[in-house]
Each structure stands twice: as structure tokens, then as C-alpha cells.
């Protein structure tokens, strides 16, 4: 019995060593690849099915580590999300600044940049308080723009702050003109943030979407500053003038930075 066991053990050793020897010489490569090809799909099914079970048991063992890892990943996601939000805000700000810089370069105006400190607390008047005053060169009647669009003019100047009357204020009136038609009118603010253009000659062929700019008449506002576009037209047969409701290009409630035109 002992002899047989010794023979089997010796034969297995010889087989293993001979296989290793022939494998190292490359004699089994084609046989090896053939076997792999045949058995690989089955192997994959097994690997996949057993992988799940194996993962389940290994997860049970690693649950503490996984929780820790999960926490770390969550905190990483949070920090990446906040970074992403910050970058989106920066991108928006960058675009707004680019537009403002573009307007500054194209128009040739010399401007004073300012930020908004306060809005009118009543919501009936449309005025804002900015963080630049006479110390920064701001003077009464200077014109205020945002991203190249007209927003109002300076009415009161203090040493470090100034008050601006927005064009949507009911007491704001300025001369405007159409860009494609040769006609002018008066742009007036309305209670409730509206803007209306009145005194447009009846014969003017005014269309929806027409862009209105400052006409420069009276010298209070420079010519060609964008005000808004026509949203609706009111025409009465017995009147010598027609009027139009305007939509501004700027969201006055979302204003953050503005430019005061010096010259």
C-alpha cells in the first residue's frame, strides 16, 4: 500500500514537472489558447455569478471600511459640487464683466464701476443706492449702465454713496428713438416696474420687437444707448400719437454691478 502511494505521488510530481518544462518551451501554447477559447464564456458566467457571492461575503467583512469610504466619497462629492457651483457663478460673473468691458472698449466711454448697496424699500419707486460717491468721481446727472444697457442716472451724490433713479421709475422720462425707423418718442417709467414709450407719431409703422435706443436729444443721455424693445403697441384712431409698452433688456431686480459713464 505504501509502495502504491509512493508511486502515485512520484508520478504526479513527474507529470507536473514535465508539464512545466514543456510549457516553458512554448509547446502547449496552441492547446492552451484553444482550451481558453472554449472555456472562457463558461468561466465568465462562473466568475460573474461567484463574483457577486464573493463580493457579498467580502463586503460583509469590509462593511466598516465601506462606510468610511462612502463618507469620504460623499464629502468629496459635496466639495466638488460646491466647487462646481462656485465655478458656474464665476463663469457668469466673467461673462458679465466681459460684456461690460466690451461695451467700455467699443463705446469709448470712460466709466466708474460700482456695486449696488440698496434697493428702494417701498417697491413703488425704482431707485438704487450704489457704493461710489463724490470721492470716486461720481457727479449728479451722470448716466448709469449695466452690461451696455441704459439703467438710469445719478440723482444724489454723497461722499461714498450715490442714489440712482432707474429708467423704470414713474418720474423718469427720457427721449428715445427707434433703430430701424426714423421716429422718436418719450420713454417713461411706470408704477410697477414698467416702461412705456409715448408721443410716437401716429403714422410711424411701429412693429413688435423694435429696439429702442436713446436719441441724445436734450443732451442728458448720450445717443445710442440701448433701452429696451417694443412688446405691445397701443394705437387710437382719434389720437395724433401712439404709445408702446417696452420690455427692458436688463432685469432690474437682479442688478449687481453697474457702470457710471463719466463723460
Amino acid at each position, binding site marked *: 500500500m505504501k509502495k502504491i502511494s509512493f508511486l502515485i505521488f512520484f508520478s504526479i510530481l513527474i507529470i507536473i514537472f514535465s508539464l512545466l518544462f514543456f510549457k516553458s518551451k512554448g509547446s502547449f501554447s496552441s492547446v492552451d489558447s484553444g482550451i481558453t477559447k472554449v472555456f472562457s464564456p463558461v468561466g465568465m458566467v462562473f466568475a460573474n455569478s461567484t463574483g457577486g457571492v464573493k463580493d457579498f461575503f467580502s463586503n460583509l467583512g469590509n462593511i466598516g471600511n465601506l462606510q468610511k469610504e462612502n463618507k469620504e466619497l460623499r464629502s468629496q462629492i459635496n466639495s466638488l459640487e460646491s466647487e462646481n457651483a462656485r465655478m458656474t457663478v464665476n463663469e457668469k460673473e466673467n461673462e458679465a464683466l466681459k460684456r461690460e468691458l466690451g461695451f467700455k472698449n467699443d463705446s469709448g466711454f470712460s466709466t466708474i464701476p460700482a456695486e449696488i448697496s440698496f434697493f428702494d424699500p417701498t417697491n413703488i419707486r425704482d431707485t438704487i443706492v450704489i457704493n461710489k460717491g463724490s470721492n470716486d468721481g461720481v457727479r449728479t446727472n451722470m448716466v448709469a449702465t449695466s452690461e451696455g444697457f441704459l439703467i438710469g442716472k445719478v440723482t444724489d451724490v454723497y461722499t461714498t454713496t450715490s*442714489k440712482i433713479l432707474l429708467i423704470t421709475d414713474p418720474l423718469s422720462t427720457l427721449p428715445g428713438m427707434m433703430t430701424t425707423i426714423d421716429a422718436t418718442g418719450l420713454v417713461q417709467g411706470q408704477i410697477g416696474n414698467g416702461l412705456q414709450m409715448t408721443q410716437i407719431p401716429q403714422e410711424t409703422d411701429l412693429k413688435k420687437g423694435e429696439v429702442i435706443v436713446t436719441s441724445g436729444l436734450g443732451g442728458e443721455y448720450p445717443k445710442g444707448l440701448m433701452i429696451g424693445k417694443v412688446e405691445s403697441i397701443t394705437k387710437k384712431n382719434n389720437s395724433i400719437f401712439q404709445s408702446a409698452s417696452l420690455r427692458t433688456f436688463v432685469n432690474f431686480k437682479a442688478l449687481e454691478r453697474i457702470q457710471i459713464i463719466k463723460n
Partner: protein
Amino acid sequence: MIIAINIFIFIVTAYLQSSLLGRFDILGLVPNMILILMVSIALYRRTYEAYAFAFAFGLIIDSLSGGPFGIHTAIFMLTVFAASLFVKEDHSNVTAPLSITVMSVVSLIFYVTFWLTLSFQAKSFALSGIIFTLEQVAITVGFFVITFPLLRKLFEWEEKKADVRMGR
């Protein structure tokens, strides 16, 4: 101490009104938190305190607003006067329905005064202006209904503290 708390509340309200609420409007409407606080003081505190607040903070709001200087001071004092007409001297008749009535009357006075002043100045009495004025009144009264129980509790707490201090 109690006056200091009221001043703190008023400054925070004024700041929120002119910076935060200015940006976050509801369909273009902004509730007038300053007016709500002013009416609450007139209803739940002593009338002379309310006049003092109306004068001091009217001037602050005048400096931030675009209206003629002094108009807020005048309207706030008028507000306190109007509220005092409804309220007994010991404030014993101040109930929720009375508070809402006073707030409605006062905000109507406030916004209609503004609308009339502006319309005369601009020589334009547009219907949209009247509608906007009434909408502003509605949203202010709406916010008063939400906030006044809290303000009432605050003023009652202040009153109790004052009583304890005075040994009443």
C-alpha cells in the same frame, strides 16, 4: 435693553427690505416689512414708543429711498396716528381681526398716498399703477397675517420683561 432689541429688529428689517427682498420679489411685488413692523409696534407697544420709532426710522428709510425727503417719516407718523385711533389706551381691544383691519387701512393710506404723489408728479394716472398699488397692499396685508402672531409674542415677552424689571 428692550429699546435696544427693537432698534436691532428694525435695523435688520430695514436692511432685509432694501437688500434681500428687493431682489426676491413675488411676481414683481415686495411685501413692506418695515410698515408691518411699524404697525405692530403701534398696536402692541405704547403709542409714544411707536411715534419715536416712526420718526427715527422714517428718516433712515427716507435716506435710502428715492422719494422726497421726509415722506416716509410723515407717512410712518400718520400710520401710528391712524393705528392709535383704533386702539384703546391700554391696548385691551387689540385682537387679530382688529390688527388685520388696522394693517389694511394703514397700508392703503401708505400706498395710495405714494401713488397719488407720484401720479401727480408724473402727470399720469395709468390703470396699471392703481392695480399695482392694490396688489402691493394685498401682499403687505398677507405677510402681516403670517408674521403678526410672532411679532405679538415678541412684544408680549418684552412687556413681561419690562414689568419684571419695574416690579409690577
